[in-house]
């Protein structure tokens, strides 16, 4: 009986004109997004390699190893084909040298602002927005539509239990939506292999988990559709309600939670932070100046009553001590300012982390946010991507600086230049190097931070669990609603 009901549900979906339309739209969207994603990836790889080459050549062309500046680029990842996440928003390179801090600059969107307007359509977007909407389109009349049609009454005029019917309904719709969707997804994966995207074993695990997550997410919306359809008598009403729920859950709630977290845990802006730092710096230097004036006054007082000769002798005697004292005070000011800056940045960062955490936890009320966060974690294009890259670039900077210092020491060239002015030859500037390029053999290469499958899965496990709980709650509610459903 259950098998028969499932078969009917499946057939009912597959034979409906809306299925043909939605299947075509989904397939075109998924395949187009994967194909364009692959092209983007290949372009990014070409650009990445060229940029690395240019950075190396720039080093080789440098006059000496002193103050050589390298550039580290964010390596493109095949995962961005599926979940672009923050890939397009975060800077793609940072200067690497001992005289500048690591800062990722020039994000893809800042270079190509046109694409930032409507943003890149990736697979995660299609699942989060398009497929969830389609899941609702196929389920809004799952129960009340059959009542309006008279088929519910006709079905329950037979020995069919409500539990059996609801389970069959769910399984039938699930198979009718998910299995056909797997076809374009599998073709997309095939495209990945055919078009030579180097996907590692870890990344395949992440892709598999991501597809599993997408299935859970669509399952949730199938459940919501069945629930609302079981709570209403008319399909027009359930459609309207579901549309409101969908807009609220997918579009509004994630943004609202970010705004709410912003209000609940305010974090100072960069301008505020800088002005605080500046205020402290000024106050500290003012304090130093006034202390210095006092000191000098005290020193003058020590010399009062002395003759000019005695005063000169005393000054000569104390001068070095005073200089050291003043220098130590000045150094202390620098240390205090640096400490304060670090403290303020740390405070802001901690507050930002609390805000982020609160925003994410609030956003997770909506499975759309859970899905997005888990997808980005799996793809490694999450909010921590910036930190991971900056940290690994800092580590690389240490290696690079050590390497350049060693090279510098070996070459003995301090990097100065000589200007000869002669009546014979005019002005001649000599950089003290021969025409040889710098030997960059053995130069440490920057490698992107590795996100292991374990890291990716463990960071998204919370959202997987939440999704599972959401699904259980929704199906429990749908079950209870249907047990009380008036068949007439």
């Amino acid at each position, binding site marked *: 009986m259950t098998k028969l009901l499932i078969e009917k549900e499946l057939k009912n979906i597959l034979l409906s004109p809306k299925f043909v339309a939605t299947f075509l739209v989904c397939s075109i969207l998924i395949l187009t997004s994967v194909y364009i994603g692959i092209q983007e990836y290949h372009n990014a790889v070409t650009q990445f390699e060229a940029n690395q080459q240019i950075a190396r050549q720039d080093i080789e062309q440098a006059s000496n190893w002193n103050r050589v500046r390298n550039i580290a680029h964010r390596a493109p990842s095949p995962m961005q084909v599926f979940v672009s996440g923050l890939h397009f928003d975060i800077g793609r390179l940072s200067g690497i040298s001992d005289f500048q801090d690591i800062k990722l600059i020039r994000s893809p969107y800042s270079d190509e602002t046109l694409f930032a307007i409507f943003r890149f359509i990736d697979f995660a977007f299609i699942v989060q927005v398009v497929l969830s909407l389609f899941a609702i389109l196929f389920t809004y009349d799952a129960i009340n539509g059959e009542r309006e049609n008279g088929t519910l*009454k006709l*079905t329950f005029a037979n020995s069919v239990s409500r539990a059996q019917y609801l389970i069959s309904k769910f399984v039938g719709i699930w198979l009718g939506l998910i299995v056909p969707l797997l076809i374009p997804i599998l073709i997309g994966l095939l495209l990945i292999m055919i078009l030579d995207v180097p996907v590692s074993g870890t990344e395949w695990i992440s892709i598999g988990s991501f597809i599993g997550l997408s299935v859970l997410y669509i399952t949730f919306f199938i459940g919501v559709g069945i629930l609302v359809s079981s709570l209403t008598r008319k399909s027009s009403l359930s459609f309207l309600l579901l549309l409101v729920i969908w807009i609220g859950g997918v579009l509004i709630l994630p943004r609202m939670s970010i705004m709410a977290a912003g209000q609940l845990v305010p974090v100072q802006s960069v301008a505020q932070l800088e002005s605080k730092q500046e205020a402290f710096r000024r106050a500290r230097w003012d304090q130093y100046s006034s202390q210095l004036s006092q000191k000098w006054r005290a020193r003058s007082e020590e010399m009062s009553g002395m003759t000019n000769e005695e005063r000169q002798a005393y000054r000569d005697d104390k001068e070095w001590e005073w200089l050291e004292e003043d220098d130590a005070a000045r150094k202390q000011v620098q240390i205090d300012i640096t400490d304060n800056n670090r403290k303020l940045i740390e405070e802001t960062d901690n507050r930002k982390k609390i805000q982020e955490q609160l925003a994410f936890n609030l956003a997770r009320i909506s499975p759309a946010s859970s899905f997005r966060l888990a997808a980005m974690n799996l793809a490694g294009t999450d909010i921590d991507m910036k930190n991971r890259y900056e940290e690994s670039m800092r580590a690389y900077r240490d290696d690079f600086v050590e390497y350049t210092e060693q090279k510098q020491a070996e070459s003995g060239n301090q990097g100065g230049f000589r200007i000869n002015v002669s009546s014979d030859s005019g002005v001649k500037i000599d950089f003290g190097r021969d025409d040889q390029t710098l030997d960059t053999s053995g130069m440490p290469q920057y490698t992107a931070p590795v996100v292991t499958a374990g890291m990716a899965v463990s960071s998204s496990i919370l959202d997987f669990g939440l999704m599972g709980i959401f699904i259980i709650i929704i199906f429990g509610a749908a079950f209870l609603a249907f047990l009380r459903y008036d068949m007439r």
Partner: protein
Amino acid sequence: MDTMNETIKQAPLLEARNLTKVYEDGVKALDNLDLQVLPGEIYAMLGGNGAGKTTTINIFLDFIQPTSGQAFINGINANEEPLEAKTNIAFVSENVQLYPNFTAIQNVDFFVRLGGRHNYSRSDYETALNRVGLQSQAFDKKLKDFSKGMRQKCGIAIAILKDSPAILLDEPTSGLDPKAGKEFIRLIGELRDEGKGILMSTHDIFRAKEIANHVGILNNGILVAQKTQAELKGVNLETLYVEYMAGYMDEAEPSLVNNLSEA
């Protein structure tokens, strides 16, 4: 043995005992309804809108629970053991809709198998659809292109193929053209002759009189009159029914009702 067979034959296929239904808003839809449908009988329930006909059918189908009293299908309590009871019944609604994207054969196949009959072949379906008068060109057409009469024919074909002892018909001829209505009545007459027990709610007094073995008139949930076909011959049912429908006759004039019931 003959006596035993006679007893089995005479056990009602559909039976309502003191069936009462009071809805949550206090409306009494059924008030102590008693009726029996024996094998080989058609029982027509006549009555206006809100008289309690559909409520009776809904209780037999376990779509609603009676406030008191019992409904039995082939001796099984329809509300206590609904799944078991429903194996003994086929139902044709007022407006058979079925699945619009399925063909006639696909719809019949689904509902007949849902009714527990898995041993039919396509030719059996075709025979049944032919029998109900559906054109063979329509067998593989989707239901969305069917007229009400054609859908109704599919509904009765499903009931025929389910081959259950009892059949419930909820206003089966409403909205059908005279020819289709007549055809429909012929078909249920055939089913009755095969020994089915049929409970039919209808507004169609003429067809009820023509085909039913028993006619019951419901008014505000009360069975105000019950007559056999033979008894009806001596009574102007049309006048009586119209008077009941118009509310001319009520409990203030119980004598005629009693006379009718006892006649």
